[in-house]
């Protein structure tokens, strides 16, 4: 069988085609290898970006406090992400001089971990000057940063001004900005918010002045427009105990609605344009919070003018008024946690988006009922008998005030401050001093027992009803002060012979607004009353004409029997009138101790 041979041209063409095919395959393989290299590079870059996205931390609660050779600066760093972070760079930006410094740090924070960073360890001279504003930022090795603003005042953190009625940030840190400037992972459409929170007390009672600012980072290739619905809010975040307290008080007050967690909205009434790939800082200034004591709650509201501005727009003013009621704890320092948040409403490519940023926590401590200008306890040593009453107390952590109250000297301490008096403070008078606009009223009782021996109660009709608590070294002495009618003084010690008699001279000292008409003396049935001494008061009822002040009354005391030293409790009940247009009848009682020394016959 004869086979036909292919034509020469066919063979040539086939071979040529095969060679070209392999050549092309070689080129393709070469190019493909390059793209594999590109793909690997892209994959590693995306992995790095993913690691970066997983890193999230907050820099909050900055503290500056006096330390050896200057000041120490602490920051609270919290790793809010799911991966460890390594902080490598710290920057201190002086907003006064616009100068910045970088410091290498080496701080490792595990997921969920919070730790204090002592920045003074890296820069012992920070802050270089006081009365300055510092922006402090920390950065990880992957380029994730967080910052906060620190205001260092001339008084440092210990400058709590008057402890009788100020609103502070965290206790003992008046000068501090509590801020959280991290971008907290709340983002949409490549839009990020970074939040700063500035707070200081302007020195006025119960008024806090806030400046808030937030950065809007537009990472879009398109501009965005912030819309008028954008608002800033402050929310009270009650503790479970405070919520319980609130519920109880609301029930007692017949309240059914509560807006405590609504906060104060602050709408923006102008649009703000943010170009592509740029950052705009929006400031909210003049944001005041006031605390008013209204029976059982503070009224927390934003009373006046606010100012929102950005770097491009002119100031935006809003007249707004909103209230937030929080329960009061009138005689103890109380912490209230607030959160600032922004509801950002913006316009992007024909659509409107809303985005919440919940961040920027700060803690306020209220030290006293703020409805009065001053409220203090006066401790008066009004007797010449002893060498003085020793005392010590502290209004500032780590700083103790101590001394001796000598004769007729007065010590004034704020309400709610624990005070230790000497183990045997002799006769003295503790008075609550309300400095109200209309009058200064005094309430008092005699104290000549070791603190805690017995509670003393004075009560009568009054429009003021408060409770003062004084802490003794071991026990608690508590008294309810009400009537401002009078107080008594006496020569506290008399000496008589058995079967004899003596005269105790008692002085009635009404205050400037009361007329005392009658005083009745008696020996109360009082626990621990010294037995074995028979006392008889003559007269037992003393009438005062025209309520003369500083009346001295002689009281005969007889039938003391057994030699010894006796403590005799004497109760005096006075009735009289207040002076003035709103005069009303009043009565008050007081108990004090008379020492009777019965000597041998």
């Amino acid at each position, binding site marked *: 069988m004869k086979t036909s041979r292919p034509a020469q041209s066919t063979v040539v063409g086939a071979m*040529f085609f095969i*060679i070209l095919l392999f050549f092309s395959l070689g*080129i393709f393989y070469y190019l493909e290898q390059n793209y594999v290299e*590109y793909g690997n*590079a892209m994959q*590693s*870059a995306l992995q790095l970006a993913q690691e970066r996205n997983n890193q999230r931390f907050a820099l909050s609660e900055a503290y500056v406090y006096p330390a050896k050779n200057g000041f120490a600066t602490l920051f609270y760093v919290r790793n809010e992400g799911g991966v460890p972070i390594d902080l490598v760079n710290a920057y201190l*930006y002086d907003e006064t001089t616009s100068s910045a410094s970088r410091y290498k740090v080496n701080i490792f924070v595990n997921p969920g971990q919070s730790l204090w960073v002592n920045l003074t360890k890296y820069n012992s001279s920070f802050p270089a000057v006081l009365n300055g504003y510092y922006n402090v*930022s920390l950065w990880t090795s992957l380029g994730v940063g967080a910052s906060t603003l620190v205001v260092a005042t001339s008084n440092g953190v210990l400058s709590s001004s008057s402890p009788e009625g100020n609103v502070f940030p965290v206790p003992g840190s008046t000068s501090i900005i509590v801020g959280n400037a991290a971008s907290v992972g709340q983002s949409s459409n490549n839009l990020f918010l970074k939040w700063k929170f500035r707070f200081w007390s302007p020195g006025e009672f119960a008024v806090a002045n806030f400046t808030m600012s937030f950065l809007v980072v537009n990472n879009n290739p398109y501009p965005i427009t912030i819309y008028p619905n954008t608002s800033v809010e402050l929310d009270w975040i009650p503790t479970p105990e405070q919520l319980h307290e609130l519920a109880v008080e609301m029930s007692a007050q017949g309240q059914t609605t509560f807006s405590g967690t609504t906060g104060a909205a602050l709408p923006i009434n102008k649009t703000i344009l943010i170009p592509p*790939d740029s950052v705009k800082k929006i400031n909210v200034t003049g944001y005041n919070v006031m605390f008013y004591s209204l029976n059982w709650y503070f009224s927390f509201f934003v009373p006046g003018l606010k100012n929102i501005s950005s770097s491009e727009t002119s100031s935006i003013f809003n007249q707004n008024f909103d209230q937030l009621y929080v329960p009061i704890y009138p005689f103890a320092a109380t912490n209230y946690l607030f959160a600032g948040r922004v509801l950002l409403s913006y316009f992007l490519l024909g659509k409107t988006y809303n985005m919440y940023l919940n961040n920027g926590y700060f803690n306020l401590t209220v030290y006293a009922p703020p409805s009065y200008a001053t409220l203090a306890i006066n401790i008066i040593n009004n007797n010449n008998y002893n060498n003085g009453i020793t005392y010590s107390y502290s209004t500032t952590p780590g700083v103790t005030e101590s001394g001796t109250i000598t004769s007729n000297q007065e010590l004034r301490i704020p309400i709610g401050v624990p005070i230790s008096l000497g183990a045997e403070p002799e006769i003295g008078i503790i008075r609550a001093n309300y400095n109200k606009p209309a009058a200064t009223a005094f309430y008092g009782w005699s104290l000549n027992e070791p603190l805690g021996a017995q509670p003393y109660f004075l009560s009568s009709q009054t429009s003021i009803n408060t409770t003062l608590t004084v802490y003794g070294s071991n026990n608690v002495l508590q008294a309810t002060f009400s009537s401002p009618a009078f107080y008594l003084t006496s020569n506290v010690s008399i000496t008589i012979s058995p079967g004899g008699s003596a005269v105790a001279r008692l002085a009635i000292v009404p205050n400037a607004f009361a007329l005392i008409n009658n005083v009745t003396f008696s020996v109360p049935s009082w626990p621990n009353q010294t037995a074995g001494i028979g006392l008889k008061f003559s007269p037992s009822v003393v009438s005062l004409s025209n309520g003369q002040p500083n009346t001295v009354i002689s009281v005969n005391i007889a039938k003391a029997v057994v030699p010894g030293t006796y403590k005799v409790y004497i109760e005096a009940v006075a009735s009289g009138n207040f002076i003035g247009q709103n005069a009303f009848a009043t009565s008050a009682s007081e108990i004090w101790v008379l020492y009777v020394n019965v000597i041998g016959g």
Partner: protein
Amino acid sequence: MRKGLSEIVGSLITTMIVISLFVVVYVTSLPALESFLGNAVYTTQKEAKQVQEDLVIEEFAVNLTSNSAHIWVANVGLQPVTITQVYVNGQGSKVNVYIGLSDTVEITVPISGSAPSYYVVVITGDGYSTSVTWS
């Protein structure tokens, strides 16, 4: 005539013709081929490097006494980079600053004066850029 020899000679001639044709085609297209492959490889490698470059402008400060801006830039990418251009509010400055991996440098460039905000752009030799606005 021996038929087998002619077949061998014919095959050799055919092979030579094919090789000659390929050489002619290869030599003719060589410049275009080199250009194509070179561009493709260059572009790919450049892009592979670019995607691994990442810079963060961590801090910015101005000194109005000397009319200069201080920019702290951290290399948080996977490639060492060389910054060649810096723009502050449109005012460009040529620089030559090398930043190794995980390193941070401070760059000082002149500025024209104070401004309410500063738009800062940093560009590397490979064309990567990052920007931020400080106000």
